[in-house]
C-alpha cells in the first residue's frame, strides 16, 4: 500500500516545541525569544503555502484507548498548564475540520487500529497544541486537526496511524501542513531554575539533540525516524513506550530522506531541547546515507553513492523510484542520487 500512497497533499512539515514559556514568557530568556521568533517564520511559510488544514500530532496529548482525533468544529477555552500555571492563562479558539477528523478515524479503523473522535465542550486540549496554535494560527484562519499520541503504540501502529491521515487527506483532496508538537530531549528541570540560567538538562541530552538535528537539517527524516528508539533510550524520560512523533511524521510525509531540512532555531526551555525545524519535500536526497533506497527485486546496478555522473536509471531505484510516488509541490530539479 505504501508504494502507491501519494503524499502530494502534504506541502511541508514542521517540528515545533510546545512549552508555554514560548508564548507567555519568551522575553525572559534570549533563547526562548529566538525560538518564539522562529514561529513567525513558520507562520509566514504556512501563509505562503495556504494549506487547507494544519494536521497536528501532539506528544503533549497522550491517549490510552487507541488513538483520538479532535473533531470539534470550534474548541473554545481558557487553558492553564498544570505545572506552569504561574506563567498565565491562554484563551483560545481552535477551529477544527470535523469531516477530515472523522475520515482519519474511519481510515485508522480500516487499517486495523482502535480510534475515536473527540467532540466535547471543555475537552482539555493539550498545552503543546494550544501554544502552537496561538503562535501560528491565532486567528483560527485555518482548521487544525489534532491527533493524539498513544502511550503504548510502537512503530508499526504509529506508522499506520500516520498513513490513515494521508488516506483521509487524499480522500477529501485537501492539502495540509504536517506538524509534530514535541521537544527533542524532554527532561524538565525538577527544581525551579531562573530563566536566565536555563540549560539543556544534561550534556548527553544536548549531544543527542545535536545528532538528531544534524539528521533533520540534512533532510534525513526517515533516518531520524529510524533513530527514534535509540533517541528515546538516550534522551527521553521513559513516560511512554517510545519516541514516536518522527515515525508518524515520516509516514505522513513519505518514508524517505527527500527533504530540504532547516533548523530554524534551537534552545533549552526548562531543560528540554526546543527546536523549530522545517522540512520541505524535495527530490534532492541526502547522499550516501541509510534509508533512501528501495527494496530491489531485480539487480540493475548499484546506487551511485560514491560520486560521479548520474547514469539515469542505473541505480537500484531506477526509473520510477520515488518513495512518494512522484513530484510534489516544491520539488527541485535535483535528481535522486546525483553526486555533488
Amino acid at each position, binding site marked *: 500500500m505504501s508504494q502507491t500512497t501519494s503524499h502530494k497533499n502534504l506541502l511541508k512539515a514542521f517540528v515545533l516545541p510546545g512549552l508555554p514559556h514560548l508564548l507567555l514568557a519568551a522575553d525572559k530568556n534570549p533563547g526562548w525569544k529566538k525560538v518564539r521568533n522562529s514561529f513567525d517564520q513558520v507562520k509566514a511559510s504556512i501563509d505562503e503555502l495556504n494549506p487547507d488544514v494544519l494536521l497536528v500530532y501532539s506528544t503533549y496529548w497522550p491517549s490510552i*484507548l487507541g488513538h483520538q482525533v479532535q473533531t470539534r468544529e470550534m474548541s473554545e477555552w481558557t487553558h*492553564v498548564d498544570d505545572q506552569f*500555571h504561574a506563567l498565565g492563562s491562554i484563551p483560545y479558539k481552535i477551529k477544527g475540520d470535523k469531516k477530515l477528523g472523522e475520515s482519519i478515524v474511519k481510515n485508522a479503523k480500516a487499517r486495523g487500529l482502535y480510534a475515536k473522535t473527540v467532540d466535547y465542550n471543555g475537552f482539555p486540549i493539550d498545552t503543546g497544541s494550544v501554544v502552537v496554535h496561538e503562535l501560528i494560527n491565532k486567528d483560527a484562519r485555518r482548521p487544525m486537526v489534532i491527533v493524539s499520541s498513544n502511550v503504548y503504540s510502537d512503530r508499526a501502529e504509529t506508522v499506520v496511524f500516520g498513513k490513515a491521515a494521508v488516506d483521509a487527506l487524499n480522500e477529501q483532496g485537501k492539502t495540509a501542513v504536517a506538524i509534530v508538537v514535541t521537544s527533542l530531549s524532554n*527532561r524538565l528541570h*525538577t527544581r525551579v531554575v531562573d530563566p536566565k540560567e536555563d540549560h539543556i538538562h544534561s550534556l548527553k541530552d544536548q549531544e543527542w539533540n545535536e545528532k538528531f538535528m544534524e539528521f533533520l537539517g540534512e533532510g534525513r527524516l526517515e533516518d531520524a525516524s529510524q533513530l527514534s528508539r535509540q533517541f528515546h533510550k538516550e534522551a527521553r524520560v521513559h513516560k511512554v513506550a517510545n519516541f514516536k512523533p518522527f515515525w508518524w511524521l515520516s509516514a505522513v510525509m513519505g518514508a524517505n530522506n527527500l527533504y530540504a531540512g532547516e533548523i530554524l532555531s534551537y534552545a533549552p526551555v526548562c531543560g528540554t531541547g526546543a527546536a523549530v525545524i522545517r522540512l520541505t519535500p524535495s527530490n534532492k536526497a541526502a547522499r550516501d546515507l541509510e534509508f533512501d533506497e528501495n527494496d530491489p527485486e531485480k539487480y540493475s546496478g548499484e546506487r551511485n553513492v560514491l560520486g560521479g555522473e548520474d547514469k539515469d536509471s542505473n541505480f537500484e531505484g531506477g526509473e520510477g523510484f520515488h518513495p512518494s510516488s512522484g513530484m510534489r509541490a516544491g520539488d527541485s530539479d535535483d535528481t535522486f542520487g546525483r553526486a555533488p
Partner: protein
Amino acid sequence: MKGKIVAGCLAPHPPHLVYAENPEQNEPHAECGWESLRWAYERLRKSLSEIEYDVLVVHSPHWRTQAGTHFLGVEKFKSISVDPIFPHLFRFHYDLTVDVDLSKAIHDQAQKRGLATEMMNNPDFRIDYGTIVSCHMTNPAWDKPIVAISSTGGARYFNMEVQQALSFELGQATREAIEASGKRAVLLSSNSLSHRHFVKEPDLPEDMSHEHINNHNQYLWDMKVIDMMRKGQTKEFAKIMSDFTEQATAETDAGSLSWLLSALDFPEYESKFHGYGTVIGTGNAVMEWRP
C-alpha cells in the same frame, strides 16, 4: 487545640465510578456498573459520617508537576472537568472550596523540610479529575473544603526510591502542618493499586461482563499488599513499594500512597477494608485508617 489527621483513606479515582453513580454534576449517565467499588465507597462514607472533620486533603496522580509539589492557592473553583481519556464518561461540573490557609501551611512546612514547592494561584486553573473523583466519592455533598496536592514525576524521572523519599517527607510535612493548624483532616490517597488496563472498552462501558483484572500477576500483588495494609504491616509494605510499583505497574508510582502512609506515621494497627474491584482491568481498593 492541636490538629489531627482523623482518618486516612485509599480512595481511587477511576472516573467510571462517578459515571455509574449518575450525580447531577456529571453530563453522561450510566445504567449501572462497578458496584463493588461504589458500595465500598458507600461504606467509607458511612464510616466517615461517624467522625467530625474539617477538611479533605487529597494527593492526586493526575495533577502532575515535575518541578516540585504544587498546592491549590485559590479559595473557589467552578468549572467543568473533562477526562482526557474517558470524555464520554466524565464531564463533571464542579464548584468547590479550598482551605487555602491549610494548603499554604502544608506548602510552607514542606518547603522547610527541603522540598521544592509552589502555590497554584491562577484562578483559571482546572482541577484534575483524580482530585474530583476521589473527593466526590468520599463526600458527594461537597460541603467540606479541600486541599489538593500535586504529584511529582520522580518515579519516571529518577526511580521509585526517589519518589518515595520525597513522598515520605511530604507526608510528614502534611501531618505537622495539620497538627499546627488545629484542624481535623481526612487524607485521601487518590490512586489505584495495580494499574495495567485494557486498551479497548466495550460499546457499553458499563457492561460488566467485560470487567475483570488485567492479569493474574496484578491480582496476586493487589491481594498481597491489601492484606499487608489490613494487618497493619505498612512499614513492610513501604519496603516493597518499589517492587510492587514496577511489577504490578501500580499507580503508586505517583507517590500518593507513600505520602498517606508517611502522614499516618506508618500505621501498625489494622485498617478498615471497604472493598476491592477492577475498573477497565486495574485493581482498586477502598481502605481507611483511623489513627
